[in-house]
């Protein structure tokens, strides 16, 4: 399991670079991860990130775009605006979670 240094901390990631340890993430780190993929975090981004974190903590898996809409209340269209092209993966990355495994 690769370990990288980010923001002065040792961070465990998978072979693609998604964080693997839920506890190693904090909101400052989210800003670094977002900056790495050219996203400036706004309140709307934070609403999604906080939903994803809470949902993962209770469900044990990363919410899909479908679930972020149906349960998190952020429409799919808005997700594509905030995290362009690949919202499911980008949201998970910034939230320090594995990429979503659900098909829908």
């Amino acid at each position, binding site marked *: 399991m*690769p370990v*990288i*240094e*980010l*923001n*002065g901390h040792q*961070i465990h*990631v998978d072979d*693609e*670079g*998604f964080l693997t340890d839920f506890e190693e993430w904090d909101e*400052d780190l989210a*800003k*670094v*991860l*977002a*900056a*790495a*993929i050219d996203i400036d975090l706004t309140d709307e981004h934070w609403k999604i990130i906080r939903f994803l974190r809470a949902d993962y903590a209770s469900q044990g898996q990363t919410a899909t*775009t*479908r*679930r972020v*809409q*149906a349960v998190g209340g952020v*429409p*799919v*269209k808005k997700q*594509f605006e905030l995290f*362009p*092209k*690949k*919202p*499911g*993966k*980008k949201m998970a*990355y910034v939230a320090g979670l594995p*990429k979503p495994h*659900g*098909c*829908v």
Partner: protein
Amino acid sequence: MTTTAPSPALMPNFGDDDSGRKIAIICSKGNLDMAYPGLIIANAALGEGVETHLFFTFWGFDMITKSRMNNLQFSPAGNAAMHLPVADAHMPQLMAPLPGMTAMATRMLKKSIADLGVPEVPEFLDQIVAAGGHLWACRMSADMNHLTETDLREDVEGIISAADFVALTVGAQLLFI
């Protein structure tokens, strides 16, 4: 605040380099079970940033026809692969055509799909359009069914010929369902 920190040494490839990829999906079936595969692939493709076009033709036309899209059915008749949700039991084909079987099988399939958090077909198409997907209706199917734009979902971008569809999906990977 370290938003100016250098990029992580290892980060996912969010693949803005493979922009230009296109997928074209021809949906020709109107049975409930055969409506889903194209929608699931389309939704996945859009989530990967791939330009996605769906062409509804023949029985697949029902998926975008307002009067029919909420009533897609699933029949066990002729489907020897269908098994019941218990103990891998197969339904004897002699029973499949009995009255009420299609309604029952449709209810069962809808419940299985809903249990996975997957939406019904019209709502799934809403999501695909929201994600940037393009819906196209087949000219010949519209003519055969005596249907016009007003009979279809408003987000269908046009009733077009097969040649038009081929032309607008130049370079696309094509999937026929």
